[in-house]
């Protein structure tokens, strides 16, 4: 089931499908994000925004406004 990264809950593991924002795309793929990459939501800041995700062993933080452009699906366990 496809949803945006801004909608997942702490501890959820997901796989990137695509990035839907043109400027964000360049920035994120340069940081190593690509379709098929597995992410895990590590923490949300107090008030739920921004969020911290684990990606390739490092921690990336983004605002919900940015995360909503990243389309993901739940990883098969």
């Amino acid at each position, binding site marked *: 089931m496809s949803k945006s990264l801004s909608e997942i809950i702490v501890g959820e593991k997901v796989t990137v499908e695509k990035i839907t924002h043109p400027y*964000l795309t360049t*920035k994120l*793929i340069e*940081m*190593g994000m690509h379709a098929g990459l597995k992410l895990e939501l*590590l923490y949300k800041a107090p*008030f739920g925004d921004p969020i911290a995700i684990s990606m390739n062993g*490092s921690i990336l*933080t983004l605002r919900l406004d940015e995360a909503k452009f990243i389309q993901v699906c739940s990883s098969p366990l």
Partner: protein
Amino acid sequence: MKIALFGNPNTGKSSIFNLLTGLRQQVGNFPGVTIEKKSGVFNTTKNKHQLTDFPGTYSIYPHSKDEEIVYNALTNSDHEDFPEMAIVIVDASNLERNLLLFTQLYDFNIPLILVLNMWDVAERRGIKIDVANLQDHFPAAPIIKMNARIGLGKDRLIAAIDELDDKAKKDSFIASSFPCLIDDKEAQNEEVLLRYEKIREILQDVQHEKSSIKNTLSRKLDRVLIHRFWGYFIFVAILMVIFQFIFSFASIPMAWIDNSFVMLSSWVDHQLPPGLLNDLFSQGIIPGIAGVLMFIPQIALLFFFIALLEESGYLSRVVFIMDRLMRPFGLNGKSVVPLMSSVACAIPGILATRTIADWKERIITIIIAPLMSCSARIPVYTLLIALVIPKTYLFGFVSLQGLVLLALYFLGIISALLLAIVLKKFIRAKNKGFLIMEMPEYKKPRWRNIFITVIEKVKVFVWDAGKVILAISIILWVLATYGPAGSMEEKIVLAKKTEFYNHTNEVQKLTIISSAKLEGSYIGIMGKIIEPLITPLGYDWKIGVSLIGSFAAREVFVGSLYTIYAVHDESDEHQNLLTHLKMAKKANGAPVYSLATGVSLMVFYVFAMQCMATLAVVKKETKSWRWPLLQLVIMGVMAYIGALISYQLLA
């Protein structure tokens, strides 16, 4: 040889830069952009080299005007920063992402060295890297293992630089045309994806992760430090400790600096024959320099703490928990540090806004930063509080004077946030920035890096603020020393006729004459010209003179009151001056320094943009006179209205 350092953010690039150059470094700007350019010199066995630290990026392609420097310097061999050799620092624990920038640089025709830094972190995470295998894929670039935080691998790097010197580079990673045009995003995306594909392929043979060992300590710390309650609680507690240090402990070296300059100034006064040159030094230049150096202890201490928090990795957690709270004000989590710094001095604070990627959020942070009460306001606040606020205690233990001081700080902070909300509505965003950043792991801070940062920040303050403060001190001295023909003489004759003058001692006579001179000088006349404008605020021309004097630096207010009220002795926590000020009467017999006037003055100093040095820095950082002028006007109006309201309410 011109060598450039490249790397992603958080790869220990600055550790390596410090390791090679030590204190032989200087901070400047890259041409045309506001990105800090650190350069320094170092020697290898064969040669002397010039090392330039380029800003940390993930790719050579820019996302903002400022990031264009990397692309421009690399693609134009006539560029003044075009490197003859590149050292690429990568985080060995995150090879995939770090190799992107390296492979791009590999495809330029520049000899380069690949440094696998943070080797220890990679080992701790159970990552094994087959360096020989990696080297086979990049035959033109020697690979060095380093752990720069503890200085490991420096000799290997220096040897590699010497060996590489003569080699011509002939190899490339991808065959296609490179680099893409600066604004062809689509081609850039394609190129980046292609590179990543190849990198992942290579890493399958080169890198082996035993198992993904999570950094449990880091995660545990995070659970507390970004907790919805404990996170903020700990941040506030840390702030309180820092400000305790800045306010109490910094006063010891500050008094020491102050006293030695007072001594120097009186020594010069005795050594040089009386006259203009003597006055210029003892009353203009030396106090001007003292006014700059006085603030070094506070600024050094504040930056020591900020560097400590930054080095340890904590500061990015602060950004994380503060971002949502700052956003309604048009600010950013990254605005917190610049605003904190501005409590010591707005200049380093404004320079620290460079980390804010979003243009609008950065401009707002810059504009509101000087509303945070800086250390130059403290002498003014303390004098005025001692003057008009009674030494009483609420509930027997809460000092009223202390409470008023606290209120002044909060007035600054709250009005800064309110101004930010207004600015948010009016400033149009040029381009939207992102908060996307990497949260580094917690690390033990390296004292050497902290020490170098502190030295650097103090240097920036002394030069940037110092030259403006010094220049204005000299101008003010000229304005206070000269007057229209006959004007000063006239005032002196008048002063000599008074009863008091004829019945006092020699020292007092001299101070009366200097006060009379000041009244007849250009600055005295300016004070009288603005008097009608400031009477509604409860000020007379003498206060007007001190307000004008404050445009060099706010604390000049105190010194000019001494001259104007002909008070000689500057000891005993201003007791003499306070007595004189309390005796000052208006024409109708009411005291000049009533509660209303005192509060009005305090409010004026909270708001007014009386620091030319800050304006100069804002101009430099925003590349336009528009923002500093806007700042001057907005804060001026706030000061006038605020002071007017407080005086009229209390009078």
